[in-house]
């Protein structure tokens, strides 16, 4: 089978790797692709809960690589999508329970069954991260538009290059268009200029993500979730479709532009600038 192993990583923790893996995996499966999502964050299992599959786990990734069970036994079929499977992480082991050779072997095995294999990487740049990228064809870096996250993303880009992998692509997560508009947050172009890699998607900050995680149903199922819609677009881009990037209102609205032209109803940033002695 012609399959692609894509690792979702970030360096910094808490930027949305697991949410991204769950949503991209679900979105790809919704497009009829055969997808496996792999939780490689051994000891800190979470992808199962985001997908709502936490009470179906019998075997895990470590059991598979140690030969305690067959791959098929450990794979958990999704509740809704017949083409989506999860390989959960072990919760009671640590990151050194698996080595790079075993991970590469596991990827080869998964390739025989699936079109897309998404690996959710642990945070950090240690063995767990190296295991997550060793068998990957492509790497997607999740970053938030804030300093620590972008800095770590830059470090990851260097490490991915050093590992002989192709240039990673960026998924900019938790962007807040209102803050960008005010000048209080870095814009997509700022982050791209600093990192110098290709963009695969922009996901706006969205409360629905927390609601979705609470329910164990990825946000892509919810048509009202703007993050969910953005993830669907990103998944289509991964599939090679040309989807335009400006999927939500980032530029000032017509009303806002008019208001500014007329010189009343200034925005927050404008007021601040005006009160500065120039």
């Amino acid at each position: 089978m012609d399959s692609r192993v894509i690792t979702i990583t970030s360096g910094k923790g808490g930027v949305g790797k697991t949410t991204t893996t769950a949503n991209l995996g679900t979105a790809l499966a919704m497009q009829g692709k055969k997808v496996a999502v792999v939780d490689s964050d051994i000891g800190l299992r979470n992808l199962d809960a985001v997908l709502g599959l936490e009470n179906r786990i019998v075997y895990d990734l470590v059991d598979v690589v140690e030969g305690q069970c067959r791959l098929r036994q450990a794979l958990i079929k999704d509740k809704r999508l017949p083409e989506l499977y999860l390989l959960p992480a072990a919760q009671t082991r640590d990151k050194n329970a698996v080595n790079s050779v075993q991970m590469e072997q596991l990827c080869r095995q998964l390739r025989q069954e699936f079109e897309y294999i998404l690996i959710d990487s642990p945070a950090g740049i240690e063995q767990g991260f190296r295991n997550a990228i060793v068998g990957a064809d492509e790497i997607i870096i999740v970053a938030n538009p804030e300093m620590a996250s972008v800095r770590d993303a830059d470090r990851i880009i260097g490490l991915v290059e050093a590992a002989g992998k192709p240039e990673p692509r960026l998924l900019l997560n938790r962007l807040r268009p209102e803050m960008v508009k005010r000048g209080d947050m870095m814009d997509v172009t700022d982050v791209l200029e600093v990192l110098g890699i290709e963009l695969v998607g922009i996901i706006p900050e969205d409360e629905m993500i927390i609601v979705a995680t609470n329910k164990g149903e990825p946000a892509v199922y919810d048509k009202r979730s703007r993050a969910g819609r953005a993830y669907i677009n990103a998944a289509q881009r991964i599939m090679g479709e040309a989807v335009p990037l400006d999927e939500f209102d980032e530029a000032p609205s017509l009303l806002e532009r008019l208001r500014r032209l007329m010189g009343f109803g200034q925005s927050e940033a404008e007021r601040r600038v005006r009160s500065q002695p120039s």
Partner: protein
Amino acid sequence: MGVFEFRVGRKKPTPGELAKERLKVVLVHDRMKISPELLEIIKQELVSVISRRLDIDEQQMQVNLMRESGIDKLHTDIPIKRQKVTFEWDPPSYTPGTPVMRGKVHIEEDNEAE
């Protein structure tokens, strides 16, 4: 933001722009693995080389790493102190109460030494 920029004139960088500029500096250091100590050594060596020819203001001098149009650069600002030249060969047109004669005119001596 174009419209009000025009109205207000030069603006202070927004937090977003500030983050971007700070990131650029941090990343140049991260990427090149150049420590502040090494940068200080480079600075001292620059001072010793350049002050053989010019009287520079070491206090105001800055040596930084930066990234511009995709190229990492070592960027230095080296302010030159008021030139000490003698009236004989280059009388300054305006000398606001500065002891112009104070400086050293080592340039010729150096040339002779070579």
